[in-house]
């Protein structure tokens, strides 16, 4: 049941417990208890809204920064990654395979702020060998949701 509830919340986190209960044909109490457990166990980390930021008055400058690192003895990549992830302007951070080690997504108010972050916070960390910054020009899809408008196709209203 946990998995089924997670799947539903993954599609739409705003559904009420009653709505989820109805869909899975279980009691509302079972839903609320399961969700409480999932939250307590740290499996559900939070609920956020997917916003098409093109419509926001306050625009942010976004970039993906590819980072090469000399891993520290005993600590590997985790120590540096955990330091970086504490900056609130870092919205996501991944350890990846391939030419680079970390991919960091940063949202800042201005281009200058991104520059300052890289030069004074990122590049100064011992172990950071190089950075490669890619500014995001346009988002097409986020977390499985298309941000562009699709033309709706009208099918017949009744068929056998």
């Amino acid at each position, binding site marked *: 049941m946990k998995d*089924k509830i997670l799947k539903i919340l993954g599609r739409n986190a705003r559904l009420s417990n009653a709505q989820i209960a109805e*869909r899975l044909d279980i009691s509302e109490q079972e839903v609320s208890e399961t969700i409480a457990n999932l939250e307590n166990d740290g499996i559900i980390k939070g609920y956020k809204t997917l916003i098409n930021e093109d419509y926001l008055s306050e625009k942010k400058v976004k970039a993906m920064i590819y980072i090469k690192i000399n891993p520290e003895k005993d600590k590997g990549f985790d120590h540096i990654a955990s330091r970086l992830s504490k900056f609130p302007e870092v919205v996501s951070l991944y350890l990846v395979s391939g030419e680079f080690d970390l991919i960091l997504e940063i949202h800042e108010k201005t281009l200058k702020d991104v520059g300052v972050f890289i030069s004074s916070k990122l590049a100064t960390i011992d172990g950071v060998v190089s950075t490669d910054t890619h500014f995001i020009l346009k988002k097409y899809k986020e977390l499985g949701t298309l941000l562009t408008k699709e033309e709706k196709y009208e099918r017949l209203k009744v068929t*056998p």
Partner: protein
Amino acid sequence: MSDLKLHHNRVAKHISSLPKSGIRDFFDLVNSMDNVISLGIGEPDFIAPWHIREATIYALERGHTSYTSNLGLLSLREEICNYLDKNYNLDFSADSECIVTVGVSEALDLILRAIINPGDEIIYHEPCYVSYESEIRMAHGIPVVVETKEEYDFSLYPDDLRTKITPKTKAIILNFPCNPTGATLSDDQLKEIAQIAIENDLIVITDEIYSELTYDGEHTSIATLPEMKDRTVFLHGFSKAYAMTGFRIGYACGPEDLIDAMMKIHQYSMLCASILAQEAALEALINGETEMLKMKDEYCERRNVIVKGLNEIGLKCFKPKGAFYVFPNITSTGLTSVEFATQLLNKKQVAVVPGTAFGQCGEGFVRCAYAASIDDIKIALKKIQEFCDELK
């Protein structure tokens, strides 16, 4: 037009005598209206998954615009047989026991034409998909109806089937999970029906187009039962599970002699199914499971919502185990099926299909398809509630 009378003999008797679907007017009315919330569609409300559409485009780009072999692309037939082996425990030869058709509709037409001598009786169960009776008649067969009943959740009760068998009976058509009732067969029922087929040496034509959309428990095909493979023609396609209705692609698997006979008709009438649809189907089989299961999960949630909602309104319906239809009893409203559907449409702009579209024994019921978003289902339920309240 003025000379219609003069031409009254132009149409063949067995065609002019085909029952004219009384439901056509209702369908035309619905399709002419705007702002209708529809629980009336007999197809998925999902668009075919992108990877399938993309594969179709890619096939076009590579210039795959030719005929295929009459039976269909060998690669597709092989993939169909693999799929049936893996998921249905059915073992068919891609070379000789599988034919790709233009939807299950063509496959049904082919097998009926392949086996019927004029006057042979074909048993089918009602309420059922609209074309069975006419397809039998068009093949010069005699349709024999066995009614499925509300008290058995519209399952086919083997004893009812038995009473319909005569020396002229050639075959039985089964469709479970069933359009329009959502009914399924239990293992015991399957066994008994198989027994009846064996005892009376009947061919079983089984339309299992909704089989992936089975929600509680596993789907079992009658073709897997002992001694059944050699007398069963298994019909399936991609329309429902993969939301590919408009591709018009299906297939039949069965004993070599019957597939070969179907092939003869198919090669002269259809030649082959569209190569683009065949390529799309191939992609669906190879990479389609994830998206298909996602859609199935959603159907299951919608089923739970609509079954509960209708029963709360007082329109009694059982919880179907398959397809995407519920078939509530509307006799408590005092209306006939057509009156209920027409008035609901006119007063509340909600479309459902009168049960009589699926046979006379569908009187007293309507078909609600839950191939609609949960939001639409909730609004429809609210409007049906209002409609029923206003009748009191």
